[in-house]
């Protein structure tokens, strides 16, 4: 069925306001908008005079859903926020709720969480790198990085049972202990990953075309980055060494040595370099975790009213059965109060603001998503640049819409 072209109202209004300018809508289905972002642009020739990002095409109502289910039930939804790094989201959410409950998880659980979060960071940055390469015309990078991601998926699957929607953490622990020999295989991955990473990066770092397209393009100044709430590699690319793993260590990050790379100019190339270096640092962290992997419990034992008892106990002991029943039906019993916890996710700082009135269901759960804040700078930095540079800029910002729109 053929339908006539229907110009959206915003475009019509823009055309009326400036008749000599061209109005162009890019997205929500466009290969370089990485999902369902739409840019409503106003062009003077090839130069952008105005850029209005339209988000919300993937708004699924996560915050409303969270208000209607128990704390543990929301874990799978956190997977689907930043679906390139679900394990990091899982951890951020779990720690936020644990802070509310006043719960300390044992060292082994923290180590598992750190190792999975860093693997998620590598996985996310690989995708960001591949997609960035694709945006500026380098297909090979994507093929190589997806190949490495498959290695990671294999490890995730062995650990959690799913390739990337893992739902691995629970409030007060993780869903299961690591399998036998898994750490060795993670170590093996690291060993083959570093040379592979160098090969992938060597395709871009000194590539003349890549340099021409990224150096000096989409510069975000320090002041702008801070004022707009930019976080993650995009902020560090602008030269601010804000990394919550260093500044506000959580989950035992203070035990590990790693460097926080920062850029000098804040352009797309700097952001690319920061991501490349962060992957090396992640490998460094993973190796340290493996080297001193603690024994002991992988869930908080003192969390009797919060963490589900072991399955074999549920099946054989009356008390544990009742406890499990109460957990499933009423949810983990939380005290009243409010917490705001932020974790350094691959895309930036992911924050959970949990307001509890007591009981097993949050009264309000606000997700502070890094991509949402990172994209809010677009109207500012897109003005006056070439339309082809918008593609570079979007690629270098490395956002994910599932998290932006929630």
């Amino acid at each position: 069925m053929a339908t006539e072209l229907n110009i959206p109202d915003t475009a019509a209004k823009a055309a009326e306001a400036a008749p000599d300018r061209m109005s162009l809508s890019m997205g929500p289905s466009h290969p370089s908008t990485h999902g369902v972002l739409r840019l409503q642009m106003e062009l003077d020739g090839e130069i952008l005079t105005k850029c209005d990002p339209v988000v919300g095409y993937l708004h699924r109502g996560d915050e409303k859903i969270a208000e209607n289910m128990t704390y543990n039930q929301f874990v799978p939804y956190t997977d689907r926020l930043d679906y390139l790094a679900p394990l990091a989201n899982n951890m951020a959410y779990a720690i936020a709720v644990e802070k509310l409950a006043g719960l300390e998880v044992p060292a082994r659980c923290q180590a598992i969480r750190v190792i999975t979060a860093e693997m998620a960071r590598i996985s996310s940055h690989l995708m960001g790198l591949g997609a960035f390469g694709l945006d500026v015309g380098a297909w090979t990078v994507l093929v190589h990085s997806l190949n490495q991601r498959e290695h990671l998926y294999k490890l995730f699957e062995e650990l959690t049972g799913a390739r990337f929607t893992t739902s691995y953490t629970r409030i007060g622990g993780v869903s299961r202990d690591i399998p036998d020999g898994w750490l060795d295989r993670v170590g093996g991955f690291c060993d083959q990953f570093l040379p592979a990473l160098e090969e992938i990066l060597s395709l871009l770092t000194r590539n003349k075309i890549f340099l021409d397209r990224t150096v000096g393009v989409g510069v975000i100044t320090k002041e702008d980055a801070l004022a707009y709430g930019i976080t993650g590699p995009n902020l560090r690319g602008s030269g601010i060494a804000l990394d919550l793993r260093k500044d506000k260590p959580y989950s035992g990050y203070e035990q590990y040595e790693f460097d926080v790379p920062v850029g000098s100019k804040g352009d797309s190339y700097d952001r690319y370099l920061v991501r490349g270096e962060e992957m090396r640092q992640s490998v460094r962290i993973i190796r340290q975790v493996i080297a001193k992997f603690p024994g002991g419990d992988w869930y908080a034992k003192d969390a009797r009213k919060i963490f589900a008892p072991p399955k074999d106990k549920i099946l054989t002991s009356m008390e544990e059965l009742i406890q499990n029943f109460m957990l499933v039906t009423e949810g983990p019993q939380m005290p009243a109060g409010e917490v705001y916890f932020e974790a350094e996710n691959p895309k930036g700082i992911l924050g959970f603001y949990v307001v509890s009135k007591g009981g097993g269901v949050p009264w309000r759960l606000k997700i502070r998503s890094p991509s949402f804040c990172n994209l809010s700078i677009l109207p500012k930095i897109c003005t006056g640049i070439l339309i082809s540079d918008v593609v570079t800029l979007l690629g270098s910002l490395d956002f994910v819409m599932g998290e932006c729109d929630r």
Partner: protein
Amino acid sequence: MAASHTELGFNGKVEGEVIVSRADAVINWIRTNSVWPMPMGLACCAIELMAVGNGRFDIARFGAEVMRFSPRQSDCMIVAGTVTYKMAPQVRRIYDQMMGPKWVIAMGACASSGGMYRSYATLQGVDRIVPVDVYVSGCPPRPEALLDALIKLQEKIKREPAAKNLFVA
């Protein structure tokens, strides 16, 4: 005379250089092995869709590697991800812009039924706005599941009365 819905193929026993076949069989053979997908990557499933397109799973083995972001050049829309009400009109519009014959694969629970997003913002199944040929379960489906869906779609294409449809439309 075979009924129009039976699967038709070539007769290998040919004389000389002439191949005798039915128009249905030839057209369907061509269509089956050159499905050009329109990757309607909306959410998480799009990542698995990319995995399918690359090395390990390699959708090219089934002739469907030519991902076209222009609806005019593609004939199978793979709806990969949650369709929200805000996005639904755009999905339909892109479907309308595709040339016939066209098919739709609803990839994953969200596209098939709204999945775990039973909320005010999510369209409860993309089949409310576009006709769906194959549904794939999973959240997200494994790449193998999507390949299976493609094979199922190919079997469906093989059974279509293609020649008849040419003159009807």
